[in-house]
């Protein structure tokens, strides 16, 4: 993992929702060819971190760089070039419901390339074959099952052969077999297409199966980043709580508690 420049560099990232601070000075970097899993419980800030990595939100403070481009400062053209080199598979798939599966996969190609229609058709069908959805191109997204939607979303994400692939909660809402298949698919993609992959998940099993390195987030802070084995052996109590599914021990601050109960504008 001694890549000269990391593909993703995040420095001292702060994020706020209103008055609530969701990310506290997060430092994060991912090198080429790595499969990085961002792990954390609900409300740990992992989805927010992903939104910042994708440039969907402006940082409160700090910088987010993809391929060395600062997303908050980049011009429209520059941002466009970055976006051509990343692929994103959203949690619910986020396929455009007005288009067929095939048109969804072809969408990035139609927008960014000047290929003729038959080439686009062949390329999008190829991507559907990669995710084992060959022959499903004419169905509408609403006609697919949950696992198929995720795979179709993955096919769209890799349509432009991105160097960097983001995957939000690949196994959420899927049965164990289908989610294991998706994990295999992710590993295969990295080996076959040499992609760098960032996966956000709270599923421990799938995280340890696919991860080269894991970043553990908790309450908006990075607890640790390291190889999967190191994370498993980490002495940190909160990491072990997460790994062993132990409920958190919530310490009650009496003053803050009273204030929350009595304050008029929380």
């Amino acid at each position, binding site marked *: 993992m001694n890549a000269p420049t990391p593909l993703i560099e995040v420095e001292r990232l702060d994020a706020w929702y209103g008055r609530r601070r969701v990310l506290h000075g997060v430092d994060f970097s991912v090198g080429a060819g790595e499969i990085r899993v961002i792990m954390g419980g609900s409300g740990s800030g992992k989805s927010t971190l992903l939104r910042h990595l*994708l440039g969907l939100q402006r940082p409160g403070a700090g910088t987010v760089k993809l391929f060395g481009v600062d997303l908050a400062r980049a011009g429209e053209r520059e941002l*466009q070039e970055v*976006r051509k080199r990343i692929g994103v598979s*959203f949690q619910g798939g*986020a396929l455009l*419901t007005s288009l067929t599966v095939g048109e969804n996969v072809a969408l990035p190609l139609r927008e*960014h390339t000047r290929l003729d229609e038959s080439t686009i058709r062949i390329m999008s069908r190829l991507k559907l074959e990669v995710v084992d959805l060959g022959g499903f191109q004419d169905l509408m997204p609403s006609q697919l099952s949950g696992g198929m939607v995720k795979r179709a979303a993955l096919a769209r994400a890799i349509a432009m052969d991105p160097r960097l692939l983001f995957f939000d909660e690949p196994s959420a809402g899927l049965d164990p077999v289908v989610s294991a298949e998706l994990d295999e698919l992710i590993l295969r993609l990295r080996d076959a297409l040499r992609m760098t992959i960032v996966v956000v998940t709270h599923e421990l099993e799938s995280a340890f199966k696919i991860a080269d390195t894991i970043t553990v987030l908790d309450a908006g802070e990075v607890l640790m980043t390291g190889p999967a084995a190191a994370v498993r052996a980490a002495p940190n109590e909160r990491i072990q709580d997460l790994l062993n599914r132990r409920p958190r021990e919530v310490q009650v601050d009496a003053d803050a508690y009273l204030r929350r109960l009595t304050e008029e504008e929380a």
Partner: protein
Amino acid sequence: MNALTRPLAGLGRVTLEALGGVGYAAMLLLEALYYALFGWRVGQRLRLAPVVRQMREIGVDALPIVALLGLTVGLMLGIQFIASLSEFGAQSQVVLAVAKSVTREFGALITAILVAGRSGSALAARIGSMSVSQEVDALSVIGIDPVRYLVAPALLAMLVMLPVLTIVADAAAILGAALYSAPALDVTPGAYLLHTMSLLDAGDVWQGLSKSLVFAVLITLIGVSTGFSVTGGAEGVGRATTRAVVLSICWIIVVDMVFSFFLNR
């Protein structure tokens, strides 16, 4: 003290939110126009196909209902004007009254209210459900600006089709008035229509059409901006749809009044 400041704070918050909404809509308008004209320069070329599709959905599909409503409103105006003008023995002036009021006012107003209910709500619902299911985010990360992909086609289609529909409504309403008034005035409907044409000047029709352009912008912007600001799942989408229709119709009526005032001074 608190009892005094809280309503004030509430008022301030509502005002700020309203101002924010207007600013957001204005920004959407500028961006949509920018992408329509110069999008190709930044790799965001506006395609013709979605514009044509929107024109069909907003315009062509609404033709029958617009014509029917226009005809009905024309009949109603004929009935009312004959009744009220005959009190002064001035029934013959019904031709003038209908011609002016339809072209300047009712044609554009009826069409806009109908399209707000049909297409403004559809825009809000479509964009709202797309925001909820992260489709808008997906467009952004693919490198497709949501404003170019979702707003610009709708805006262009609305700007073309609302005036077209308004003309159809004008014609249908005048025809409707002719059907009722011509027998009452002892003339043929053909003669009634010819008389109408001789009384109308281009300025009357323009007044209606210029309003319909403003209504087109209002309906689109209110529809898409409520759609983009949807939060809270399916219920939020429903709320946004209702809000889009109610807001559009309120704005249309108020703006219509303001325009009528200034255009008739």
